[in-house]
């Protein structure tokens, strides 16, 4: 009996420690990013790091301005958002409200499959199919552009947007629909003016999480955007995102050097951006539950 009590005491301590492990890990991630990355700000002031126009990490003297990378990320993300938000929300409405049961199951499985495809495979397919297509369509010297990146990422944001928006739509109480139909509204009027409106907080969360996914996406975007760390003048030029820069350049840096620290500092920027997006999305998701 005593032995059992001691055993259970230790098990319950372990459960508690595992429980708070997520907090510890988030703190550790931030701490290690700061530890390795902060030293760059001794050399480059934060405002120069964020807003200087030149990213030439290996010239002499090196220049660490991540503005072109931020613009690259924003451009590709905005493009992906413009494509994926309306299409994603429309699909969610179709799957949740209109599709018959069997069709619904098939469509949901299809979207789950899309979520499962590794990003490097999507990047590979984008490179060999979408790249040449964009190149021929617009008569460019290379098809690996911001536009190709946006289309690829729009596609990758779909599973997040569709599944979370669909959950939100399904969670709208049945009485709303019944009341609207009883008032003589058509199915479409009910879907669009009642259900979609009631599900709006969940849709906002879906869009935010989709965008969070897009900003953080690395491999596919590195393979299809052409990777030029210059401020682009149109979406038909190659760009380079924050994530792709870290992934592409870390292998060539000297550990503890300035370039190395600068890449960790980009990691800090990415961590803070996604932290904010996820936090806000979570607030909207809680609104849905109420």
């Amino acid at each position, binding site marked *: 009996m005593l032995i059992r009590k001691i055993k259970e005491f230790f098990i319950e301590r372990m459960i508690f420690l595992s429980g708070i492990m997520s907090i510890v890990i988030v703190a550790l991630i931030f701490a290690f990013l700061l530890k390795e990355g902060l030293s760059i700000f001794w050399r480059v002031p934060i405002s120069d790091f964020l807003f200087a126009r030149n990213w030439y990490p290996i010239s002499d003297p090196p220049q660490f301005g991540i503005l072109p990378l931020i613009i690259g990320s924003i451009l590709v993300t905005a493009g992906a958002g413009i494509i994926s938000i309306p299409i994603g929300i429309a699909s969610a409405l179709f799957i949740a409200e209109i599709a018959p049961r069997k069709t619904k199951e098939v469509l949901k499985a299809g979207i789950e499959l899309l979520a499962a495809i590794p990003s490097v495979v999507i*990047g590979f397919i984008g490179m060999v199919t979408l790249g040449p297509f964009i190149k021929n369509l617009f008569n460019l010297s290379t098809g690996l552009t911001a536009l190709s990146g946006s289309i690829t990422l729009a596609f990758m944001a779909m599973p997040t947007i569709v599944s979370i928006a669909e959950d939100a739509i399904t969670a709208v109480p049945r009485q709303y629909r019944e009341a609207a139909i009883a008032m003589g509204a058509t199915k479409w009027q009910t879907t669009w003016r009642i259900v979609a409106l009631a599900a709006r907080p969940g849709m906002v969360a879906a869009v935010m999480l989709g965008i*969070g996914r897009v900003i953080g996406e690395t491999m596919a975007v590195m393979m299809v955007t052409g990777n030029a760390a210059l401020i682009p003048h149109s979406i038909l030029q190659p760009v380079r995102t924050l994530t792709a820069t*870290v992934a592409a350049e870390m292998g060539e840096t000297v550990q503890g050097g300035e370039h190395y620290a600068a890449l960790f500092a980009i990691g800090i920027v990415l961590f803070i951006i996604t932290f904010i997006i996820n936090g806000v999305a979570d607030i909207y998701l809680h609104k849905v539950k109420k």
Partner: protein
Amino acid sequence: MNVQLKQKIAFSVLFFCTLLVVVPVLIILVIIFVKGASAMSFSFLTEMPTNGMTAGGIFPAILGTLYLVLGAIIFAVPLGVLSAIYLVEYSRDNALSRIVKLAIVNLAGVPSVVYGLFGLGIFVLFLGFGASILSGSLTLGIMILPVIITSSREALESVPQSFRIVSLSLGASKWQTIRYSVLPHALPGILTGTILGLGRAAGETAPILFTVAAFYLPKLPQSVFDQTMALPYHLYVISTQVPGIPENVRYGTALVLLMLVLILNLSAIILRYQFRKRKKW
């Protein structure tokens, strides 16, 4: 305009949008299956690469991915399940549990390349594991932790409260109740989450870039402190870094990776379906 006509048009537009999402998935699968099938053979799966990776097989990459995924699971499943038990069975609705939940949401949203940086900082350098299977597995394990916690939580929550009450009323302790009356019923759900985590870990590239992945190794890894090749990184390397790789080798590698991930995901979907059908409460 006639409301019925309007409805017809609206539904058609929504249907068309859904097709825009789903049809490209099919196209991607078909392209990879058709073009990759010609590379498929027993020797492609079981031999070492030769001639600067332009010929031979991809065995070391397949083996490396299996090692990494296994290592990630060994680390993440116990931690994730215990964490879920804490959230469902022990925590009250207070500030601490809200912070834990927020931390999990944020872990799920951290970009994969940031996990790579973290793994480099803590495992490779600070703890001195070097670029190794150990560092890569731990990094992937942390990355899939939110997947495992979330699905384990759902599985535990789906076990009816009455199971716990009966067990407690018979004099069982809290832990005995969890161990013998709750966990067995949550097991299929936990297993589903584990398989989904496996699929996620097998396909990720960015977290292993700086923590373990090797461009090319002439021999297989001997211990957890060795570097290894891995399927997703290998696909990245042969499609962007090395010129002159025959097309069917690239598609073949993509096909093997895709099959691995899809089989894992399909088994999770089937398992979940079977579980829901069998559930009696």
